[in-house]
C-alpha cells in the first residue's frame, strides 16, 4: 500500500504491484463496484492513499470496532446487536472496498505492536467478520456492499464464491463418499433428509470446526469434521481468526515489505498512536474534542503551560512536560501524546508551535525545527491536510503508575510534593494493587481538596483520560477563584458531552 504525501504524488512501488496483480479479482477499484462482500484480508492490498485518507479510514474502522466492543460489554440482544452494527458499518465504512480493506490493514499494522493490542483487535475483527459472513449466508445485507441477496439458495452461491476466492482448502466430500457415509451424515441432528440429497459436504480438520464439534452438530471421523456448506460459516470464522492471529504476529514484517522506508518514517508515529486515538463518545458520529476547554481562558499557552503543568496535569503529562523541559525534545510517541493532550486541552496551533519551538530551539535551529516538527504539529491541528483532526487518546501509554516500579514512583511523588504522606501512601497502595486509574484519581483528589462539592467541576473520567483530569482541574481552579463556576454558564465550563 502506498501512502502518498498530501499531494498524492507517489507512484506505486514495484513490491506492491505484485500484490496488486495477485489481487486483481478482488476488485479494489475506486469505483467500488466489487461484489465481494466479505474479505479474509489475506493479501496486502495495493493502492495509494493520502496521509489524510490513511488516517481517516483508520479512524472510521476504529469507530466500528469500538462500537462492537461497547455493544459486547453491554450484552445487547442479537437482533439489536446486528442492526446497530449494520448501522455503524454503513455510516463509517460506507460501501467502499478501499475504505474497508485499507483500514483493516492500517489498523492491523497499528495493533500488532503488543499482545494486548493484538488481542483487542483480533477479538473485534473476528466479531465483525463473522457478522458479515452470517449476513452473506443468510442472504441479508449489512455487509460491505450492502448488496443483499434474497433469492432462495442464491446466497449459497455467494458463500461458495467467497470460499473459492479465498482458496479455502476445505476438502469437498466426493459423491461416492457422501453416499457411503449417508447414514452417518443423516444421523447428525438438524440434517434435513430432503436437503441432504443436494447438500455439499466438506471435510475439515476438527480443530477448525470446534463449535460444531462441541455441540455434536457434525459427523466426526478420524480427526475430521464433515460439514454441509451453510455450516461452513462457523469454520470460516474460526479460520479467519487463526489466520489473522498469525498475521498479526508478523504484521510488522508485512508492513515493512509493502511500505517504503520514507513512507514508514512519516506514518510510523501515526500508526503507533492509532490505538489511543479518541473517536468521540461511543456510538456517536462526532469526534470533536470531548474534554476541550471552550475559549481561551484556562487553555494552555506557551506562556502559562509551565505553570499549568504543575497545577493541572496528571502525572503522565507532567512527566512528558518535565522531559521536554529537561531534554528540549521528546520522542515521536511522547511528542504525539503530549501534543494531542495540549491540543485537547485547548492549546491553539500557534501557541503549540511557539511552545515547542521555544523548547526545541535550545538544541536545534529554527530551520531544522520547521523542517522536522512544524509539519507534524500543523498536521495534529488539522491544518496540513483536509479533515483530520486529532483528538486526544483515551488509552495512553507511559502511565507512570503502571510502568514505574514502586521505588521510582514513590520517589517521584515525593519529588513533586504531591499531597501529603497519607495521600502518597494511598496512591502507592492503589499502584501496588494494580489499580492505576484509582491511583491517578487519588492524585487528583489529593491536590484538589473539596472538588466533589464544587459546582461546575466534572470529575467523570478523571482517572481514565489526561484531558478529563486537566479540564476538571482547570474548572476546579476557576470555581475556586470565582471565575464563573457558580453559574455553570460561563464559557470556561468543561463540555460534558461525551464524558461517559
Amino acid at each position, binding site marked *: 500500500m502506498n501512502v502518498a504525501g498530501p499531494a498524492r504524488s507517489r507512484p506505486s512501488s514495484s513490491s506492491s504491484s505484485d500484490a496488486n496483480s495477485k489481487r486483481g479479482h478482488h476488485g479494489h477499484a475506486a469505483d467500488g463496484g466489487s461484489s465481494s462482500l466479505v474479505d479474509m484480508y489475506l493479501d496486502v492490498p495495493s493502492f495509494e492513499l493520502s496521509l489524510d485518507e490513511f488516517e481517516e479510514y483508520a479512524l472510521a474502522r476504529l469507530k466500528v470496532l469500538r462500537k462492537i466492543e461497547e455493544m459486547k460489554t453491554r450484552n445487547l440482544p442479537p437482533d439489536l446487536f446486528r442492526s446497530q452494527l449494520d448501522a455503524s458499518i454503513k455510516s463509517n465504512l460506507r460501501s467502499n472496498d478501499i475504505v474497508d480493506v485499507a483500514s483493516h490493514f492500517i489498523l492491523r499494522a497499528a495493533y500488532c505492536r503488543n499482545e494486548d493490542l*493484538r488481542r483487542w483487535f*483480533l477479538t473485534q475483527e473476528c466479531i465483525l467478520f463473522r457478522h458479515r459472513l452470517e449476513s452473506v449466508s443468510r442472504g441479508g445485507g449489512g455487509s460491505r456492499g450492502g448488496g443483499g441477496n434474497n433469492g432462495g439458495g442464491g446466497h449459497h452461491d455467494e458463500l461458495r464464491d467467497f470460499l473459492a476466492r479465498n482458496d479455502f482448502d476445505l476438502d469437498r466430500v466426493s459423491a461416492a463418499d457422501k453416499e457411503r457415509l449417508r447414514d452417518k451424515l443423516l444421523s447428525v*441432528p438438524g440434517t434435513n433428509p430432503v436437503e441432504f440429497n443436494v447438500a455439499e459436504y466438506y471435510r475439515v480438520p*476438527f*480443530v477448525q470446526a*470446534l463449535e460444531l464439534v*462441541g455441540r455434536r452438530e457434525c459427523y466426526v*471421523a478420524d480427526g475430521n469434521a464433515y460439514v454441509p456448506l451453510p455450516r461452513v460459516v462457523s469454520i470460516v470464522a474460526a479460520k479467519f481468526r*487463526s489466520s489473522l492471529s498469525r498475521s498479526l504476529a508478523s504484521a510488522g514484517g508485512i508492513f515493512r515489505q509493502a511500505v517504503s522506508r520514507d513512507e514508514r518514517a512519516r506514518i510510523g508515529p501515526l500508526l503507533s498512536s492509532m490505538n489511543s486515538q479518541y473517536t468521540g463518545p461511543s456510538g456517536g458520529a462526532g469526534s470533536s474534542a470531548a474534554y476541550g476547554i471552550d475559549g481561551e481562558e484556562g487553555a494552555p499557552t506557551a506562556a502559562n503551560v509551565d505553570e499549568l503543568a504543575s497545577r493541572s496535569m496528571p502525572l503522565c503529562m507532567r512527566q512528558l512536560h518535565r522531559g521536554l523541559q529537561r531534554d528540549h525534545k521528546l520522542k515521536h510517541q511522547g511528542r504525539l501524546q503530549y501534543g494531542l493532550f495540549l491540543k485537547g486541552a485547548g492549546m491553539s496551533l500557534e501557541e503549540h508551535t511557539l511552545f515547542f519551538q521555544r523548547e526545541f530551539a535550545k538544541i536545534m535551529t529554527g530551520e531544522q525545527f520547521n523542517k522536522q516538527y512544524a509539519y507534524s504539529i500543523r498536521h495534529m491541528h488539522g491544518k496540513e491536510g483536509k479533515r483530520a483532526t486529532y483528538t486526544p487518546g483515551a488509552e495512553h501509554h507511559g502511565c507512570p503508575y503502571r510502568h514505574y516500579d514502586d521505588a521510582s514512583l514513590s520517589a517521584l511523588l515525593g519529588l513533586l510534593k504531591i499531597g501529603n504522606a497519607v495521600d502518597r501512601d494511598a496512591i502507592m497502595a492503589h499502584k501496588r494493587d494494580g489499580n492505576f486509574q484509582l491511583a491517578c484519581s487519588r492524585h487528583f483528589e489529593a491536590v484538589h481538596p473539596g472538588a466533589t462539592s464544587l459546582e461546575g467541576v466534572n470529575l467523570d473520567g478523571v482517572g481514565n483520560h489526561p484531558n478529563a483530569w486537566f479540564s476538571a482541574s482547570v474548572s476546579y481552579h476557576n470555581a475556586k477563584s470565582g471565575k464563573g463556576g457558580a453559574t455553570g454558564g460561563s464559557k470556561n465550563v468543561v463540555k460534558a458531552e461525551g464524558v461517559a
Partner: protein
Amino acid sequence: MGAATDAVDDDEREFGAEDDVVPAVKSNNDVDYDDADADARRDAPRSSSSSSSSSATTSVVYSPELLGVYYSRLFPYDLLHSWLSYDPSSINPGNGKVVTPAKASSSSSSSSSSSYSSSSLSSSSTFPRREFSMTIEPTPGSEVYIRYQSFSSREDLAAAVMRRRPTKLDIGAVFNHPPKDNKSLPAGKLQTVERELVFDVDLTDYDEVRNCGCAGADICPKCWTYMGMAMGVMDAGLRRDFGFRHLAWFYSGRRGVHCWVCDESARMLTNEARSAVASYFEVNLGSDKNKGFNLSAPLHPALARAYEILEPRFVDSVLPEDGHGLLATRASWTRLLLTLPKAAHPVASRLEERWGRSPGRDATPREKWRELKSELASFVGGRGGGAKAPKTLSSSDRVRIEMWPVETVFRQTYPRLDINVSKMQNHLLKSPFCVHPKTGRVCVPIDADDFDSFDPFAVPTLASLVRELDEYEARGGGGNDANADGGVVHDWQKTSLRGPFERYRKKVLIPLLNDERRSAREERERRAAVVGDF
C-alpha cells in the same frame, strides 16, 4: 505464590481427580521450604525405624515408611520421564528398552541425559519445562501443596520425590520456561505451551445409579463395571472420531480412571479445542430421573456407537440381580416401567401384568429387556401382537418411546466425565504411578485392549509390593544384574507391577516415542499453526 504466576493461578486449588484429600493448607512460603527443614518436620514425630518387612506383615497398606520404600526402589522414574520428555532417544532403539543411567552414558551421543543439560526452550525435550506439583505432609495431618516444581532431568525428579516423599504428585502443563523459575520471571511471562488432553472419570459421579450400595469413595466389583464401560466408550470415540492413537489409561488409585491422550496434535490443542472435545463426549443425563434428558433422534453417530458398546454390557452387568438389579425384582421392574413415556403406558401395564405371573415372572432380566424393547418397537411400529398404539400417537411421543431404551442405557452407563479436568491446558492431574494414600494402591496403567477385566482390587498395594520384594529377594532371585533373571533391571520387575508396567511400555510408550521420532519438525510447526492462537 508471587505476582509472576498470575496467568496460572486460577487452577491453583483444583487438584485433579482425587479431591477427597483435605484441601491443602496453602502457604505463601510453600515453595521456599527449606528441604532439610521439611525432612526434619516430617520425620520428627515418627519412629525412624522403617524395616520394610515388619511393616509388610501387618494389615497396613500405606505408611510414610512404605511410601519411602516405594519411591526409592519401585517408582518407575524412567517410564515417567521417557514419556514426558517425548524424546525418542530415551528409548534404546535396538531393544525398545528404556535407557538406564548406566547404559545412557555408554550409548550414543544423543542419549537422553545429554538433553537435560539445558533447561531452556531450545532443549529438545519438554521435560524440564513440565510442571509438577507435590502434596507433602510436613507434620502428620497438615498438608502443604507445592506448585511450580520442575526438574531438569529424571535424576532431579527422582531426588526430589525421594527427599520430599509427596503423598500426591500432580502433573501439569509444559510451559515456555521451566516453571520453577516462575518467581524470577516478569508477571504473565510463564505460559502454557502444551499439555496432554486428559479425561477423568470417577465413580462418585455415579451414585444415583449405583444400586450396589456403594456411595462416595466406596467401590465394589459391581459398580466398577461402569468404569470399564466408560473407558470403552471414550477410547473408541477418541481413536475413531478424533483419530488419536496414543491413549494412556491409568487407575486413579481409588475409584476412578484417568486417560492421557499423548498424540502431538492432542498436546497442542487450545483450551477452546479441549472444551469442544470434552463437550462432544458429554451427554446431559439430567439430574433427576428422566428430567431434562431428551436425546434427539436420530442418534448422533458417536452416541449410536456408544449405545452399541454399552447396551450388551448393560444387559450383562446392570440388569441382573448380581449387577444393579434393574429388572431383577418386581419392585425394580415396576420402577423401571414407570420411567416409560406416558404414551407407552399400555406397554407398561401389559408387561407389568405378564411379568407378575408365571411363566413371565421366570424370564431372566436379559429376556425381559429384550421383550420390553420389542414390545416398544411394535407399539410404535403399529404392528400386531402387542399393545396397540393409538393412531394419534404424535411424532414426538413416537421419538420419546423409540429413544427410551437408549436413554435408559445411557442414564445408567454413559461415561460421566469431570470435564473441567479436560478443558484447561493448565489443569493439574494426578501423576500415573503414584500411590493413593487412602488405599495404598498404585496408579497402574490399564490395558486398553481389555478394559472390562481390569480389577482394581487386584492392584498391588504398598504393603503387598514390599512383601513381594522381600519374597523375591528371599528366593535369592538375582539382584540388579540384568542377565541373571529374565531381564530384571528394575526392582519393580521383581513384583506384580511388572505385568502392567511392561505392557504399558510395550503398548503405549514405545509406539508413542516411535511416532515422535517419525514426526518431522515441519509437521510440528504446521499443526501448531493450524490450531495456533495467541
